[in-house]
Structure formats: C-alpha cells, structure tokens
C-alpha cells in the first residue's frame, strides 16, 4: 500500500520544476530551428533548420569572424578570472579570518556584506560613487594625485566587471572555505606546531590540501552562479562599448529584446546552455579525479 503513495510526495515538486524549466527549455531548442521575427508578424514563422546556429558559428573569411567567438571568449575570460581571483583572495581572507582576535565576528560579518547585496544595487553604487571620473572616489583621488583618471567603464570594461563580480563572490568563497578551515581538527594544528613548520608551509602545504574539497565546491557553485549573471553587466557597462563586455547570457538577452529574433536568440540560448553544462561537467570530473587521488 505504502509503496504506491511515496511518489505523491515527489510529484508536485517535479511537476512545477518541469513546467517552469524543462518544457520552456525544450521549446527554446525547438524555437532555435525557426525563422521567427517578433517585430514582423507578417512574415510568419517558418522552419529554418540549422541556419540560426550557422549564423553565429560559420566563418566565411578570417577577416570577418562572427561576433559570437569574441563574446564566447569574453565569457571565458570573465568567468575564469573571477573564479581564480575568488579562490586566491577567498583563501587568503579565510586564513586571516580564521584567527581568534577580538571582534573577529564583526570582521567576518563586514567581509560577508557584499554577497548579500543585490547585483543591480552594487553595480549602480560602484558606477556612481566610485568609478565615476568626476564625482566618484576614483576620479577625485586620482585628480588630487595629479593623475588623469581614465574612464574605466569604457576603456577597461571587462576588468571592471571582473572586479565587481569578484567583490561580490569572494565572500561566498570565504563562507565555504572558512567553514573548511574551522573543521580542521585541533590535533592537526598541534602536531604542525610541534613539527615547527613555518607559516608558509603550514598554510599552503598542510591546510590548503585539507580544505581542497571545500575549495572545489566553492568554485563549482561559483561557476554555476557567475556564468548566468547579467544584472551587473547591464547596469555598469550595458555590455559596451559595442559588445566588448557582453557575456553569453547578456548576448541572448540583447538578441531577443532588441533584435526580436526569436529563432536566433533560441540558438544562442541553446549554445549557452550546452557550453555551461560542458564546463560544469569538466570541472566536476576534475574534482572527482582529485578526490580519488587523495583517497
């Protein structure tokens, strides 16, 4: 009797998730094979085969490589640099915050702050009160030093976005890595002390391997969340100048809301999902391999 009823617990959740995520995703894949222009209903919707994909991928001559490739490259640069910065700085911050100095909880709380701030708010705050060349701290400090502040948002858009992404996600890495550090048993610390290992060895050769699992989890979750972030890009550089600070999700957004090309946007979205899943998969395999090595 009971055996039949257990799936009833599962069904509502599966239904809601399927209707809101799986079915629309399948539709996206179907749309990606259609020629469908929202702003020209008179043209109707026709089957277009793989032409939408070829529009992005086909290289006719090497003087004129489709924009897709540069956007793809930017996405990699954005994500990988952010993840590296987050891991390194996150680890160093965690080592620092692992000390029992007076008021350490306040310090931890302050470092945690940026993670809980909505990306659109942190974007506009950085843009207006810090990065602005006339009214922001950056501009004012540079001018008082006799330097000419360049407009970072137009000249170094990717670097700015990497900086802001990192500022937001380092706390998340600290959250997880610090939990790992605090889980290191006291007798390990004690035996290190007896061995007389110096700080550098203690930190990088003993503690780092012990929290590698936490680090990997942080990188994995970070990848999943960072790769889909567009709010920050929209409010800071709006993808510009040109498409220099687009990432793939932002390109999808622009294609549908400015281009009204449902089919093309569908193709781009499908490719974005495939690329995301492949990179998560690769990372997961690396983690599993490393884990097997340690065990």
């Amino acid at each position, binding site marked *: 009797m009971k055996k039949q009823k257990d799936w009833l617990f599962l069904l509502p959740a599966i239904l809601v998730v399927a209707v809101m995520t799986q079915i629309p995703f399948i539709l996206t894949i179907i749309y990606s094979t259609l020629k469908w222009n929202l702003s020209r209903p008179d043209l109707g919707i026709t089957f277009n085969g793989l032409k939408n994909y070829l529009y992005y991928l086909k290289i006719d001559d090497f003087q004129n490589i489709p924009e897709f490739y540069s956007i793809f490259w930017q996405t990699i640069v954005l994500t990988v640099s952010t993840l590296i910065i987050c891991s390194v700085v996150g680890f160093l911050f965690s080592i*620092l915050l692992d000390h029992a100095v007076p008021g350490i909880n306040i310090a931890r709380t302050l470092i945690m702050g940026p993670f809980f701030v909505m990306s659109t708010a942190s974007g506009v705050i950085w843009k207006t009160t810090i990065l602005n060349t006339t009214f922001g701290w950056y501009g004012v400090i540079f001018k008082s030093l006799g330097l000419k502040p360049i407009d970072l948002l137009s000249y170094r858009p990717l670097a700015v976005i990497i900086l802001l992404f990192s500022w937001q996600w380092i706390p998340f890495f600290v959250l997880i890595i610090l939990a790992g550090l605090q889980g290191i048993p006291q007798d390990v610390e004690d035996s290190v002390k007896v061995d007389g290992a110096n700080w550098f060895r203690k930190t990088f050769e003993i503690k780092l391997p012990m929290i590698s699992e936490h680090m990997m989890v942080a990188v994995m979750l970070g990848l999943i969340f960072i790769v889909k972030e567009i709010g920050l890009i929209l409010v800071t550089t709006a993808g510009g100048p040109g498409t220099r600070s687009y990432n793939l999700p932002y390109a999808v957004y622009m294609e*549908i809301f400015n281009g009204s090309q449902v089919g093309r946007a569908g193709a781009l*979205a499908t490719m974005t999902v495939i690329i995301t899943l492949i990179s998560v998969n690769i990372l997961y395999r690396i983690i599993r391999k490393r884990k097997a090595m340690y065990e």
Partner: protein
Amino acid sequence: MSNMTLEQKHRLKRKIKTAMLTIVIFGIAIFYFSPILYMFLSAFKTEHQAVMPMLFFQPTLETIKLVLSDRNMFGYLKNSLFQVFFTTLVCLLLAIPASFALVFGKFRKKTTGESAYLWFITTILLPPVAVIIPLYTWYQKFNLIKSPLGLLIAYIGFHVPIVVWMLHSFFKDVPVSIIEASELDGCSRFRQLVSIALPLVRTGVISAGLLVAIFVWNEFFLAFNLTGNDTATLSVYMARFREQQGMFVAQLSASSMVAVLPAVILGWITQKSLVKGLTLGSVKG
C-alpha cells in the same frame, strides 16, 4: 625592560602580534565593506552634500524620508516582499515532502529516488536564459507580466531544486532506523515526515528558506524580463538608476539602502546556518 622574565617577554610579544593582526584584519574588512558603508553614509546626505565624495557632513533624514514617501518605491518594496514570502513558502511546501521521499521513499524501481535527485540537481545548472524566450512570449501573450503570480511561479520553479538539494543532505543525516521503527508502529509517511523527520531537519529547513529568500530578494534577470511597471521588484527598480551619471547620489544611496539592508541583515543574522546548509549540502552530497 631588562628585568622582564622570558615568560613576560613572550606574552608581550604575543599581545603585540594579536594587536597587529587585529588591525590588519579590521583594516581589510572595513576597506572591503567601504562601498556599502559609503552608500549608507550618503543616504543621510542632502543631494547638494552628496555631489562630491566626502565623509564628514551634517547628517539629515530628509532624503530617506523623500525616498520612503515615494509611492512607486513603496510599490516595488511591496512586490519584493510578496515574491520573497510566497516563493519561500511554496518552495518549502513542495520541496520538503519531495526531498523526504527522495531519501526514505520506496519506489517500484530502486533507482527512482537517486535519478530523480540527479534530475533536480541538473536543473540547478540550467541558466535562466534557457527558458526566458518561451516564458517571455507566453507572459506577453497571456498578460502574465501584469500579475505578480507570473513571476512567482517562475521563481518557484527555479528555486525548488535548490531547496531539494539542501534538504536532501539534511534528511540523509536522519537515522534510517528511526523511520523504519515508526513504520513498524504503523506510522503513515505523512506522520513520519511531520512528527519525526521534520523536527530533526529544522536547521536545514531554516537555512534553505533563508537562502531562497535572499536569492529571490536579489534576483534580477527573471524579474527584469517577466514583470511590468506594476509588478517590478526592487532589483529592477535599482537598475533604473544606471543612466544617471553621478546625479541624485543621495537619492540613489537612500533607495539602495532600503533595497539592500533587509537582505544584508537577514544574511548576517543567519550566516551560521547558511554555512551549515551550504557545506552540508555540497561537501557531503
């Protein structure tokens, strides 16, 4: 100095080291937090005071009052609260029984629980761009952007997998023997869940709920695309400040403060359970 014992010298050295470390840690922490800190400060400035960067000024509540008396702002705040409250509630109602069944349920095929769990995990990986095109066209067609329910169901669909993922590892910590014993006593599945398992995974439920609340409060992409003027949330509202090149800094800061403070406070209060939920969910599972 000279008649200090070695013991005292040692202790002094350690004290100095701790003091230095404290200064370094707090220096970094305050610097790291300073953009938010400066935003909070600027919220207490007048527009005139906020034009150029400065730290010392006569604080005033004028701008905050102005922002809070804005009917639009109030509407966005209400919309955000609505989405956070109902998404969290419904997500928990759907995900608690689901993750309980994933761990303890018996299905015709033994692997059903495992594969359903993996399916939930993979949907976490799905970026919102994968679904936004059909959702956007449906929402336009059926006028769902005019109703807060439209965004709500999208949020529920996207956050249930996260709750399932977190709760799954908490339920796994519940000893199977307790559940089996209660089964022999003739306890129904529902009773097992409500009166035996649920109290044991309370921390998990709380931290999953909080994580969803913070995510939804801050979510931008879906809210931006699936809402109209009357249904937009605070994160969409904040994005509207992007065009103002250094203008209305005080107003921007005061609005940001309203938009940011709830999530930051919630996050701070719940750090410990968040850590527990995330690490248990990820390192173990």
